[in-house]
């Protein structure tokens, strides 16, 4: 008997809720249906997920989007071009502050108002430098947090971000090592359950449709095994459809919680996948729609404008200036052409454009497609700025 048509793909991941799609594609047999054998490789640091990808221990990886771009541009190590044909999800992160700071910044009920919380932190930052834990320098967490603080008038020399691995976020809050953390689930909930802090904001409140984890692979490997990766994209889409169906939440939470996947608490995972957050100890969870955004509105489509936005933030916070050549290489990391090629002929909607003005949609907007019909909902940055990928330098010049 021969094996699956497309052979095996090894996929590296970190035990986070947003590693759900490759896990479900494997566990529910969606990959098998597409003629693929998936092998999941679990690690505990992004550095190791990346090393395994670059040295061929894995064929693809669940990766923080900015790290795929940094690797392609050769930040911190020799440049190795990566490709992203599929976005594994939008948002799904939250900001948790130490209790005393949370009480000062958002004494109110529910999730905070981004402007009000930011203004309060700006006032605190006049007295002392604020310190935040993020999962990695090249993470959306870092960029979203910094975007928000800067837009709220916290001067850039009055806050700093340090890297804290997700499993140690609650510790770091408890010990006072940091004032706040910006991390994915279930780690905010773990901190709250332990009484180490209070969730004040979801990153979806900063950018309603912010790009988060991606599926990344080496550019050369994508070319070599293109049919296998296209089969993977179809399997991941099926997993996405399964993931957002409330009928499957119980079973999927239990599955993701298993030791070989997230090795976590199924109740906390269930909360995250049903867009509910326990903001503080002893309260009832609140529902925040699209906390973690999957599948709908072609959420997994790799918009080139998302990569372009991430590059502007890299320039913004690292200095070194905008470089048109680098910007072009960063933009090429996202591969909508592969996404379309994989899903042509399926029922999935395929956007006609590859780039859009990010953060410009105030309400429902019908968009042109090559296949299927698609309506995008509101997609704004909390401060009302929009990113036009045609003018990244103008955008950078206008940021605080």
């Amino acid at each position, binding site marked *: 008997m021969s094996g699956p048509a497309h052979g095996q793909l090894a996929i590296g991941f970190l035990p986070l809720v947003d590693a759900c799609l490759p896990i479900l594609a494997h566990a529910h047999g969606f990959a098998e249906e597409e003629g693929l054998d998936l092998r999941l490789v679990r*690690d*505990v*640091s992004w550095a*190791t997920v990346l090393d395994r990808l670059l040295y061929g*221990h894995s064929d693809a990886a669940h990766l923080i989007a900015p790290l795929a771009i940094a690797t392609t541009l050769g930040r911190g*190590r020799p440049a190795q071009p990566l490709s992203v044909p599929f976005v594994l999800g939008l948002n799904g992160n939250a900001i948790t502050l130490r209790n005393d700071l949370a009480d000062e910044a958002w004494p109110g009920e529910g999730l905070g108002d981004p402007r009000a919380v930011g203004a309060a932190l700006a006032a605190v930052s006049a007295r002392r430098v604020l310190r935040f834990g993020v999962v990695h320098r090249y993470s959306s967490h870092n960029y979203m947090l910094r975007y928000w603080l800067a837009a709220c008038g916290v001067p850039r020399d009055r806050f700093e971000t340090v*890297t804290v691995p997700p499993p140690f976020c609650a510790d770091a809050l408890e010990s006072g090592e940091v004032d706040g953390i910006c991390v994915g689930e279930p780690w905010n909930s773990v901190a709250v359950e332990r009484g180490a802090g209070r969730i004040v904001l979801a990153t979806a409140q900063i950018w309603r449709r912010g790009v988060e984890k991606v599926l990344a692979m080496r550019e050369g490997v994508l070319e070599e095994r293109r049919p296998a990766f296209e089969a993977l994209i179809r399997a991941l889409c099926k997993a996405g459809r399964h993931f957002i169906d409330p009928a499957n939440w119980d079973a999927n939470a239990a599955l993701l919680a298993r030791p070989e996947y997230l090795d976590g608490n199924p109740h906390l995972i269930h909360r995250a996948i049903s867009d509910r957050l326990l903001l503080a100890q002893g309260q009832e969870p609140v529902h925040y729609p699209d906390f973690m955004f999957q599948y709908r509105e072609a959420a997994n489509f790799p918009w080139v404008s998302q990569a372009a936005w991430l590059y502007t933030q890299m320039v913004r916070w690292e200095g070194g200036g905008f470089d048109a050549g680098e910007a072009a290489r960063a933009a090429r990391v996202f591969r909508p052409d592969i996404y379309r090629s994989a899903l042509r002929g399926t029922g999935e909607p395929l956007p006609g454009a590859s780039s859009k003005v990010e953060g410009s949609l105030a309400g429902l907007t019908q968009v042109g497609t090559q296949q299927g019909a698609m309506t995008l909902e509101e997609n704004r940055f909390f401060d009302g700025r929009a990113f036009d990928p045609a003018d990244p330098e103008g955008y950078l010049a206008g940021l605080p």
Partner: protein
Amino acid sequence: MRIAIVDASASRAEVIREGLAALADCQIFVVSERKGLVARIGEIAPDIVLMDLGNPSRDVLEEYFAVSRVLARPIAMFVDESDDEAIAASVDAGVSAYVVDGLAPHRIRPLLDLAVRRFNAFARLQADLAEAQGKLAERECIDKAKRILMDSRGLGEPQAYAELRKTAMNQNKRIAEIAEAVVTAHQLMGGMG
């Protein structure tokens, strides 16, 4: 040369340290504690940092190396592409290395080779141990299944074992797998396991 070994497993760190102690002209520091890691590395001011790939603090250390202006900053081993083979071997063995820029390659290679050998040796030890533990667990499961058959069907011990073996042969499975199925079924039927 100052070498820092960062490893949450004190026993593995010791195996590596012992191995490297053979090198002349080396001072070796072992860091097993996660808390205060960055400050400790700052004090040691190592020329080389060895860290296992399974350490969650790798991102923390890389961040420190990237932004630190305090020491001559160690950079990922991966910067030196000329030695790709050695790097691939270290990733295979599960060890990452960070080397202070400018350290002569002829000093790095023997050290890295040695570290890789020690890591592999430790991994083999662990695999042996896991296998031994697995066999023990299988043994216990088979004993349990035998007792279930003896109690429920009034068999003697040799017959109970023969029954398990016969079923395993018929189904082309291992005896341990059949025993596990018997125990699970017994639990499902409300037995005490």
